[in-house]
């Protein structure tokens, strides 16, 4: 390397070619670990580097991260099981999304992955029944703010978040994978119809739909926060299952462009590389905006993507109203 890498590429290269980390000096290791923690990928890195002859201090730290991820997996699967038990009486299976789905099905993308909330997908016409079943099983509303609540119910693709009163864990109940205000409307019924059972009452999306969801979440919804991790998911899913039929499925959901971009960017970061267009480079600049202390960098690029994420989600007049309400409420959003 001509000059030391000082952004998210340090992490991307370590994941792509673990053996190269053996050339790192102590400062390089410190930067890699801080970056991986900030991107919530320390568990992923720890599994990826397992067995390498890294310095002892690093080996200990990575062993801790693996133990922590293993415990996170237990807790995530138990939340899924709790939701299954709560929803069994109303006959709605739990369709797991994102991290919990990966660990439930033992996918490569789930190895060491940090998992926050439990995300599930349910049929839109059963959402009231699901809400009632969860509340009777001990989940409670998180947000008392009436604007937020109203906003969720009218415009979002999910219920306002619920938290379990004894276990302190959140559940996000989705009825589709993009906000209703977004300009793209994926086939939510099709997602459910093509889902596959991993055990009785517990299902995950089909492999192509998991990729479509990851891409939708990254490029048609969010501001790319957590993007390095999401693209690692994409890389692992493609590596494990290939892309057979993916383009057709993505087109069916109206997300062909987003899926194609996810494939290019994940290959650029973690795989064999890809032919990138100018916009792709801008995305990568945002995705890797992280320094060796784990700090967010490139504030203007981040701000641009933050505004874009809202633009995608809402019609302009609504966006103005939303940002105004948020601003008045003192929420500035996590843009820097």
């Amino acid at each position, binding site marked *: 390397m001509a000059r030391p890498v000082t952004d998210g590429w340090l992490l991307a290269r370590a994941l792509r070619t673990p053996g190269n980390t053996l050339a790192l000096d102590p400062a390089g290791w410190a930067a890699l670990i801080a970056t991986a923690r900030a991107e919530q990928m320390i568990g992923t890195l720890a599994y990826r580097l397992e067995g390498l002859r890294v310095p002892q*201090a*690093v080996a200990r730290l990575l062993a801790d991260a693996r133990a922590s991820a293993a415990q996170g997996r237990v807790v995530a699967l138990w939340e899924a099981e709790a939701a299954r038990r709560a929803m069994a009486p109303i006959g709605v299976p739990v369709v797991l999304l994102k991290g919990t789905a990966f660990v439930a099905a033992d996918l490569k993308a789930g190895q060491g992955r940090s998992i926050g909330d439990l995300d599930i997908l349910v049929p839109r016409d059963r959402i009231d029944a699901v809400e009632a079943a969860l509340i009777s099983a001990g989940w409670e509303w998180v947000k008392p703010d009436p604007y937020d609540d109203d906003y969720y119910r009218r415009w979002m693709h999910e219920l306002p978040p619920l938290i379990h009163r004894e276990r302190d864990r959140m559940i996000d109940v989705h009825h589709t994978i993009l906000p209703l205000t977004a300009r793209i409307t994926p086939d939510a019924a099709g997602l459910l119809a093509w889902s596959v059972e991993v055990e009785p009452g517990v299902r995950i999306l089909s492999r192509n739909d998991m990729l479509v969801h990851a891409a939708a979440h990254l490029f048609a919804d969010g501001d790319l926060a957590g993007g390095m991790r999401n693209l690692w998911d994409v890389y692992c899913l493609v590596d494990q299952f290939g892309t057979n039929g993916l383009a057709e499925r993505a087109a069916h959901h109206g997300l062909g462009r987003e899926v194609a971009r996810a494939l290019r960017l994940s290959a650029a970061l973690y795989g064999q590389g890809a032919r990138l267009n100018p916009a792709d480079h801008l995305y990568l600049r945002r995705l890797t905006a992280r320094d060796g202390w784990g700090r967010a960098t490139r504030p203007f690029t981040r701000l641009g993507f933050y505004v874009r994420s809202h633009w995608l989600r809402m019609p302009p007049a609504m966006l103005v109203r939303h940002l105004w309400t948020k601003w008045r409420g003192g929420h500035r959003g996590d843009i820097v």
Partner: protein
Amino acid sequence: MRHVFSVRIGPIGFRIGSDWRAPIAQMESLYTDYPGPHDGVPDFNVRLFAARPWRRVIRPSVMIGGDFVLPEAAPLPLAQGLLAAEMGMNLQMALGQRRYLLLHASVVERDGRALVMTGMSGAGKSTLAALLGTRGWRLMGDEFALLDPATGLIHAFPRLISLKNAAIGVAEAAVPDGVFGPLLPGTPKGDIRHLVPNAAAIAGMDRAADPALILFPRFGFEAAERYVAPSEVFVRLTQASTNYVAMGERGFDALTRLVTTVPARAIDYPDTDRALAQVEALWRDL
């Protein structure tokens, strides 16, 4: 970051970065006899930074960041930058430590055996540990006991001793040759002054010890002591641990082993002299 200081406290390495020189200079001076992180790689990072670039110079206030952060943590004035650094290090341990079961406790050692003192803030566990450290005991730490699930041993974590309010005068009188940090008046926790652990504590910080007695001291009452049942010790220590649940089965095994093999007593004490005598008597009777 502009200014950087790395240090190892017991088994744990830290890298502290700061937008200002002053907190780093204070740490360099107070931690002067401490080694650096194993292999040069820190376990945790702490960042002291200005909320907005201009707040580096205009009414400078220190935000605490790091690998693990609590939302809504309030900034401290730059004059309390040393406290900010110490809080940042504690926070990394409280939120991020996964190798050792972390017990909010002070620990001293004699003959390879550890006395663990836990209880609410203000119970005097820091002060007692500091005083015992001058009377034939080795101070292992005043904030966290690091219980190793693999061995059942307690590892030392002798960071600067954090003395609050009345304890400052007590320690200054009892440890006249001690090295103290600057007096930090008016912090969110009252007046604070740090005491550097003595040479024996620093030189011995890589020696783990076998836990032999758990004490729940309580200051401000007539001298008394009582037996504490294992189940009560268990529940109280789960609540005195910031990572018990996150440690999973390793935490369960470590803690049940501790409470079923190590005796526990609650002691009330009216003044520190009495407390020290009570501790010595209990220790003799083990």
